[in-house]
């Protein structure tokens, strides 16, 4: 059976890269006794996949990983067991059963929410009246940026990839296109914003927190965006391992 685990990655965990987060969860599963399925062969690995790698330096309130498991306790117990062996800054939010037909999180991610805010006690501060700049920047019909790939650079318009934005007390909230089809990293948006204001974006100078990941249509308006968590169902009673009939 498949389960979807939602977790937070905050505080100093922002310095742990994606590959290390994967290794971290492999060990969490062992410590917490998650009955995860393994691939075969001489070096078997746990069958799990992450919805979307989070860049170094970003925090998140809504990360997802899908796992293939053989048996499970209730959702509440699994969350508790895993949280008992978490490092500071990592926290399991939910542990939900996926329908057999569910597609892997990785393949359905369509959008992500981010909150961009000023760092506490940082030398870099946002200029006065930055809200106005953001407003006029996002009021544009077209926001052209140079996107560098390994081979070449090309001009793209990122405005359609900004699905929603809002100025909040804590900072700037944006809902951005995410996933394999069209992916807008918040850093790229910030670079464009700073460029618009005639400045250069100092890397890592702002706090960027991913709030949620969504599945949904290819483009805005096509299908409603659904938080990845909504595909799962709470496990109310333990599910034992399937007993396989012995072959005669």
């Amino acid at each position, binding site marked *: 059976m498949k389960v979807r685990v939602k977790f937070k990655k905050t505080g100093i965990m922002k310095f742990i890269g994606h590959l290390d987060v994967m*290794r971290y969860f492999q*060990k969490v599963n062992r410590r917490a006794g998650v009955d995860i399925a393994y691939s075969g062969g001489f*070096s078997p690995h746990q069958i799990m996949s992450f919805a979307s790698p989070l860049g*170094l330096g970003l925090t998140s309130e809504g990360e997802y990983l899908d796992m293939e498991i053989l048996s499970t306790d209730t959702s509440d117990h699994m969350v508790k067991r895993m949280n008992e062996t978490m*490092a500071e800054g990592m926290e399991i939010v939910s542990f939900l059963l996926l329908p057999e037909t569910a597609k892997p999180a990785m393949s359905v991610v369509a959008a992500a929410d981010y909150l961009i805010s000023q760092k506490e006690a*940082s030398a870099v501060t946002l200029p006065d009246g930055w809200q106005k700049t953001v407003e006029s920047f996002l009021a544009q019909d077209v926001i052209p940026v140079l996107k560098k790939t390994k081979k070449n650079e090309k001009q793209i318009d990122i405005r359609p990839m900004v699905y929603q934005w809002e100025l909040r007390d804590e900072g700037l909230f944006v809902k951005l296109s995410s996933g394999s089809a069209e992916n807008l990293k918040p850093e790229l948006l910030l670079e464009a914003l700073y460029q618009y204001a005639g400045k250069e974006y100092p890397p890592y*100078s702002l706090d960027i927190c991913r709030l949620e990941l969504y599945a949904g249509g290819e483009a805005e308006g096509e299908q409603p965006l659904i938080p990845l968590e909504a595909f799962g169902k709470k496990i109310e009673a333990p599910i034992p391992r399937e007993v396989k009939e012995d072959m005669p």
Partner: protein
Amino acid sequence: MRKLALSDELLLSVEKPARYIGGEINEVIKDASRVDIRFCMCFPDVYEIGMSHLGIQILYDMFNRRDDIWCERVYSPWTDMDRLLREKQIPLFTLESQTPVKDMDFLGITIQYEMCYTNILQILDLSQIPLFAADRGEDCPIVIGGGPCTYNPEPIAEFFDMFYIGEGETVYYELMDLYKKIREEGGSRKDFLEQAAALPGIYIPAFYDVEYNEDGTLKSMAPNNPHAPARVVKQLVVDMRDTFYPEKPLVPFLKATQDRVVLEIQRGCIRGCRFCQAGMVYRPVRERDIEDLKQYAVKILENTGHDEISLSSLSSSDYTHLKELVYFLIEKFRQKDVNISLPSLRIDAFSLDVMSRVQDVKKSSLTFAPEAGSQRMRDVINKGLTEEVILEGAAEAFKGGWNKVKLYFMLGLPTETKEDMEGIAALANEVARVYYEVVPKEKRQGRVQVTSSTSFFIPKPFTPLQWASMFTKEQYLEKARTVNEAMKSQLNHKSLRYNWHEADVSVLEGVLARGDRRVSRGILDAYRRGCLFDSWSECFDNEKWMEAFAAQGIDVAFYNLRERSLEEVFPWDFIDTGVTKEFLKREWKRAMEGVVTPNCRAKCQGCGVRKFGGGVCFEGQS
């Protein structure tokens, strides 16, 4: 949430910021206001190396079991972070509390290899602690060194307030109690050092004067303080049941060099290889209890979530219960998808059976360490492995499906001749020949691959070969060329591969291994010239080292090429490892005669460690 010493911008501007944030699973956090002693344990190399070291895990656990001590960690900041800390003048900090190291009571540095000496200076320097012990004031931490290199601490003696000679589990608690007592009494740093000098195993370099002969050799080394003993006796755990084992070792986020559970099965070695320092200074052999080990394995795997476990010891095949332990691990953990990583074992039916169960035979290779190419040379170094045994082992392995073999050798051993060097190639060729002999054509999976590697022999203190001369870089390279040429002329040369170790690092390691106090000036000068991470080939700068030595009047030939007489007083003679100099001399003479010496279980050779009252010396006598 813990506050970090560095800002996000700084951390995110370096490679692998996770090296500097702590917060790992099983990290120990205490309330600093409720402990009496702050101890910072340091491994002077990069985080991923330091985190792989079992010794630190043992001591970290041992100290933190006490409520009045908080033991934290620090590792060498990599070169990118090194630059940042200097530029911003940020003092080096501990991982746990992110407090400056200079605010600790103790800075304990484990010294595992000579090529980390400049990193020790880096740690002190970045911590803003004076490099010389003599310049440290009452507010500075007590800088204490431990580990294998303290069996000749002289080249770095002046940088340390004290050294702890031997296994850390025995005297550290006493030392901590003493520190508390002196502090409560309002005593000074000197008061503490004086009373500490009276503890067994503690060496305070400042309390000894060194005099030299006109020819530069050591004349004498004598205490200048009434509290300091003339000889410092190595400390060891006599009964391994009566010690600590970290059941909740730290689990790093970054992939450490040893990303697995390490189970130490025994200390010491019965074999008596004459080049091996570990085999001499860790005597006598003391085995851990098999039932204890089984329990540790289960608990540690549970507490860490590691998916691999490895056994650690010298000559693991000699552990009495090895079979039982290995089969227990396989039965208990294989179905849980835990990898069993085997130490290098004597190749026999047992090890081949085990290997075929835990490794992919097609991918894995078989390792032998004959150490020398000819039987004569192996007799000189007392490596009891014969060609017959190697070839029989290889034949069995080839029949079992293996087709890759690794062979390890040393070049530059005393009395070595051209024939001995060429013997390396000949032996490799024989191994390849055996493959074609025992594996029928239709069963061969391509060509057999025999990879031979040579390192240059470096004489180490407290070994029977401590009197041996070394060679120049050019001579070493000539030796490697001789082997390489011989490889090419072998019948099966297409199946043979040959690698050799860098020669200039070996020359330098030789000076640092058998150096005296005067060498410290060269180390400091090299550090000032920018030498750091010398064990990393991308960082090692031999030219700077040679310039530093020249500037400080340190003659490489004096330390490496000179013939040492049997009467010479060595800088490390003041340490009593239990193994007597008389025994070492006897063994040196036997080496020169090419006479082998049986192992400790076969026949006691009276090396001297029987005085410790435990281990293999008393087996079967209780």
